[in-house]
């Protein structure tokens, strides 16, 4: 089957759908797009199924050649994008013809771009999902990041309506994020003074941030736990090991672990955290489970009500 051929794979280009659910009992993690907001917009602008497979382009550097006529959208991090050498815009549908060369350069603002094509890439799911988790060697084409020469199958998918998302409606990727936290798990094992410190200081992203977890550094926080039984880890959980430096666990986290956790960052905010680079600053804010639900509902409603404009 024809589709796209990878010429330069970039640093970390991964096929992803919305994620793998229902396989935690086998020890398989979720995977899926680190920034689901940019991912969802890429599919929406093409009228794709919400779960259609896209490429998450980590840090950029991807070049592909089309073997079919289709349309594409690039959302997420700001990166210089070109079609046959000419600059093209992000967050809008672009028509692609057989033989065209599509280039996504290195991200200048944000870290993850999402490339969607009309109808999505046609990838056989494993355990119900096409999402690539390199650590598990599961998903994607062969359980790995994209390589030069890989052929990504997809059907012709030219769309009739050219759409773009108004600039005012796009997320902004800066060098700060407020991370809202639903407290829980071992929160009680952190003395009030430790909790106060955690929620009142700024943390910096270290260079040890990947799809498993984002390691932060700042004021140390300690719990009173002495050894705990391993337990299930949900998305966004903030693990604080003995060195007192928090780790926010992301899409490719291990499904169980034995370090104390103070709570979990909501998905709307891990999406923003994922677009930050080492050195960026984050601050945690405690919210209630009610607020966490409200933020989710509002995000969904806003997404549904925001109409892209014709271009």
């Amino acid at each position, binding site marked *: 089957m024809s589709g796209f051929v990878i010429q330069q794979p970039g640093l970390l280009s991964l096929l992803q759908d919305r994620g793998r659910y229902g396989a935690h009992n086998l020890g398989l993690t979720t995977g899926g797009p680190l920034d689901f907001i940019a991912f969802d917009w890429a599919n929406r602008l093409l009228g794709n199924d919400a779960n259609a497979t896209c490429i998450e382009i980590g840090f950029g550097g991807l070049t592909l050649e089309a073997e079919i006529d289709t349309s594409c959208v690039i959302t997420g991090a700001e990166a210089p994008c070109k079609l046959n050498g000419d600059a093209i815009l992000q967050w809008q549908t672009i028509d692609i013809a057989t033989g065209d060369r599509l280039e996504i350069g290195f991200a200048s603002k944000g870290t993850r771009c999402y490339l969607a094509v009309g109808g999505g890439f046609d990838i056989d799911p494993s355990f119900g999902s096409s999402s690539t988790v390199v650590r598990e060697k599961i998903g994607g084409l062969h359980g790995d990041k994209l390589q030069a020469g890989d052929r990504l199958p997809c059907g012709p998918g030219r769309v009739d309506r050219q759409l773009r998302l108004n600039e005012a409606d796009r997320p902004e990727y800066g060098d700060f994020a407020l991370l809202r936290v639903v407290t829980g798990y071992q929160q009680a094992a952190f003395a009030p003074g430790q909790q106060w410190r955690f929620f009142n200081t700024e943390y910096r992203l270290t260079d040890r941030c990947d799809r498993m977890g984002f390691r932060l550094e700042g004021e140390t926080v300690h719990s009173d736990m002495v050894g705990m039984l391993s337990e*299930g880890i949900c998305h966004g959980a903030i693990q604080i090991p003995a060195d007192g430096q928090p780790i926010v666990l992301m899409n490719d986290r291990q499904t169980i672990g034995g370090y104390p956790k103070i709570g979990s960052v909501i998905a709307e905010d891990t999406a923003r955290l994922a677009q930050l680079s080492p050195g960026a600053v984050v601050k945690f804010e405690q919210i209630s489970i009610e607020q966490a639900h409200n933020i989710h509902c509002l995000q969904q409603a806003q997404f549904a009500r925001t109409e892209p404009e014709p271009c």
Partner: protein
Amino acid sequence: MRIEVAGQNALIVYFAEQSSAEVSAQIQAAVNNILASMQDCIVDLVPSYASLLVIFDLDRADYFDVKRKLRGALENLASLDAEAGELVTLPVYYSTESGPDLEIIADNGKLSVEEVIEIHQQREYRVYAIGFAPGFAYLGEVDERIAAPRLATPRQKVPRGAVAIADRQTAVYPAVSPGGWNLIGLCPTRMFDPERDPSMPVKAGDRVRFEAIDRADFLGLGGEL
């Protein structure tokens, strides 16, 4: 039993402060009840030593709804029989060739290598949790005489099928990976095969027995040295 918030779309049920065969059976009964009555709003369940993480679909249910239904599902837990769960026998080629840490464990416990092999096979282990990697089943608990701390320097490469001990836990490595557990033998049974259904020979709550096989049988069953 305590039901607590874990995240925006997750609750965690704590069954006890310590793990035991009874607690494990209770968690398995809870998993069965939840799968039977709440499947429409549950995304993932992660049973572990003494807890169960319940991840729900935020577009279909909310925390309060899930908590209420969960209380119902936890009310009448079927048999708390510690004998619940399927019994799975895994063959092991124990030897110093396939288990480079057998002698260390023997020295630790002032035992002979043969005794270590014998003691590892004597017990029936329970699958307390699956995690770390796809198909990695944490089995407990081994006899104190063969319990051994993790290696000070983890190995870069533990072979697939390695049967290992860390503290009072034992496990079979489902794939080649780095690891710090003490290696005592090799199991030819694939612990995780994505091409097969089911992809794992065990699930949480099952019971496992190890049975010694010789080198020829190990190779005959598809084992690789």
